[in-house]
């Protein structure tokens, strides 16, 4: 269950959705603010900084992506975007602009609440020198990966890919974000690089690379690292 009273800002231009979501989240123990426009959303967030934002992509006075970008200039509060089939492009834009995750309308309440709990759990990227993912141990300082004490040999790019994913455990990272983090700021559109490296990485760290448990594909969006034992 949620930490009692965490403030969630819900932004959607459909009053009925706002109403249903607000009641639902209150029922889950959150404090809820609502906004129907981009302007109202930014004002509400500034007045009462939320613990997390649930943000519709299409707003009457702007896009959710713009709101997301604006929020990112002063808060790290996680953002979950509400997208719809047909808005894939805007969804990726929002994720690139700093959104943490998305759900597709119509979504199930359980799914939304689970995503919300997940993003609230990890408020900051993990920064320690050693990250543990299941039985994998990622030593960031030494650039070493071991499974049950046994060393796994990774190329420098494979290692960086794993490190970035592990440091943002649970978070959906877009192709663009991963390419920039691993290959550098000049990259961003070479998703095929990424697919090749992810498949190499999986063949080294997954028990069954054809059914990945650690590095999960979010179709059309990016990749997400999860803890195989936590889920």
């Amino acid at each position: 269950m949620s930490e009692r009273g965490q403030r969630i800002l819900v932004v959607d231009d459909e009053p009925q959705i706002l109403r249903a979501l607000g009641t639902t989240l209150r029922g889950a123990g959150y404090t809820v603010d609502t906004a129907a426009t981009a302007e109202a959303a930014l004002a509400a967030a500034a007045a009462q900084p939320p613990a997390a934002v649930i943000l519709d992509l299409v707003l009457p006075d702007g896009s959710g992506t713009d709101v997301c970008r604006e929020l990112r200039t002063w808060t790290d509060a996680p953002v979950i975007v509400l997208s719809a089939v047909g808005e894939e492009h805007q969804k990726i834009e929002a994720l690139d602009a700093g959104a943490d995750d998305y759900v597709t309308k119509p979504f199930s309440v359980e799914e939304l609440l689970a995503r919300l709990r997940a993003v609230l759990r990890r408020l900051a990227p993990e920064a320690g020198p050693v990250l543990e993912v299941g039985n994998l141990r990622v030593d960031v300082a030494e650039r070493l990966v071991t499974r049950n004490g046994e060393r796994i040999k990774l190329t420098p790019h494979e290692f960086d890919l794993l490190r970035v994913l592990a440091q943002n455990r649970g978070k959906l990272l877009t192709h663009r974000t991963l390419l920039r983090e691993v290959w550098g700021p000049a990259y961003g559109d070479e998703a095929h690089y990424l697919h090749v490296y992810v498949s190499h990485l999986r063949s080294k760290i997954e028990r069954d690379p054809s059914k990945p448990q650690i590095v999960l594909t979010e179709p059309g969006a990016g990749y997400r690292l999860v803890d195989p034992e936590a889920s």
Partner: protein
Amino acid sequence: MLRRLALPLLGSVAAVAVASLLVYAFQPIAPTLSLGVVYVLAVLPIAVVWGARWSLPVAVASMLVFNWFFLPPVHTLTLRDSENWSALVAFSVTAVVVSELAARSRRRAADAEQRRREAALLAEIAGHLLGGGKLEDELVWIGGRAAEVLGVPRAEIELGRPHAQHGDAPTPLEVDGRAVGTIYTPVEANEHVAVRKRFLPALAALLAVAIDRRRLEREALEAETLRRSDLVKTALLRAVSHDLRSPLTSITTAIGALRNDELVFTAEDRRELLDTIAVDADRLARLVGDLLDLSRLEAGGAEPEPQVWQLDELVRDVVAELGASGRVELAGEHPLVNVDAVQIQRVLANLLENALRFSPAGSSVHVRITATRREAIVRVVDQGPGVEEAMLDRVFEPFYRGEQRSGAGLGLAIARGFAEANGGRVWAESRPGQGATFALALPVVEAPVELVS
């Protein structure tokens, strides 16, 4: 026949006679021998007008007459001097040469005239074919004109290859080996073969261009129609999916919340969630109904069942049904219309709902009914923000929503559909900032006889 011989004969005799009279007249003042040249004046016109067939005899006759009447010894045909022989030769050569020249120039002139007619006709045909009329109709006309140029009593042009059923002789019209059509003409002895060889290929080329042009036009039209209907479908799908998804999302959210045992709700929260479900289920039902109406209208399936109604009563009913009596002011005439009441009330309801939605709270919507001899017009006037002129037609397109975001943008499209199905029309009049007027015009019916008398 007689006439064809008589005229040149008379002309020839007259020419020789006139020349002889001239020689006779000039004899006192000029040497006789030199006057022989006067007979050239007789030979020349005959050669020009009737050719060598007549001018040669005239030359011989001139020589004989000159010899008999004027050359010594007079009244004998003795050619005493070699001058006489040379006169005869000169007359004959003149006759032949001039005849030939004249004949040639006559042929040239005729030929030029024929070519001019062909060129003029081809230009005329090109004009007709580019005019965009129906090709089959043009072919009938072209056939008639082609017959004149070809020198045959009739000519008929058909698209397609020659076939034996046609009574007249077929000639294929071809361009670079491509069969364009066939021209059927009766077999005529004195047909202009050279003309046929020159004219038909040009005609075929023109026809080929016309056929290609029509095909391209048709294809372009089809492609454009397809593209537009594709665009419409895409817009439609996008709008429908949005309009279906929003209520669906709030319904699934509310249901998911109510079914989740971990969530804690007060009685009021529960009622709120149930309300959400009810309201949005209604919205979905209405949207599906609207979509069905629209697709029925577009498929032409909304067959009206007309009856005679008094238009203002239809309006009054709708206003009452909308529960908007307090906000709608009705005034005007009481024309009779022959319409499907359910459909026209739907039109009126959609126009009124639209007007009410855009009117500032507290302002009223005015409905005015006017009638001419042919049309009854209902004007629904609101005091809302108005519609930009460029958008006046677009508001009736399905899924057009303008600035508003409520509603699926189907109401006015459906209104237009039902109005047109009942022989009427709807339109918008507005200036931004001055409110909008939506009008419905319906054909009026004469009052039934028992009411008039």
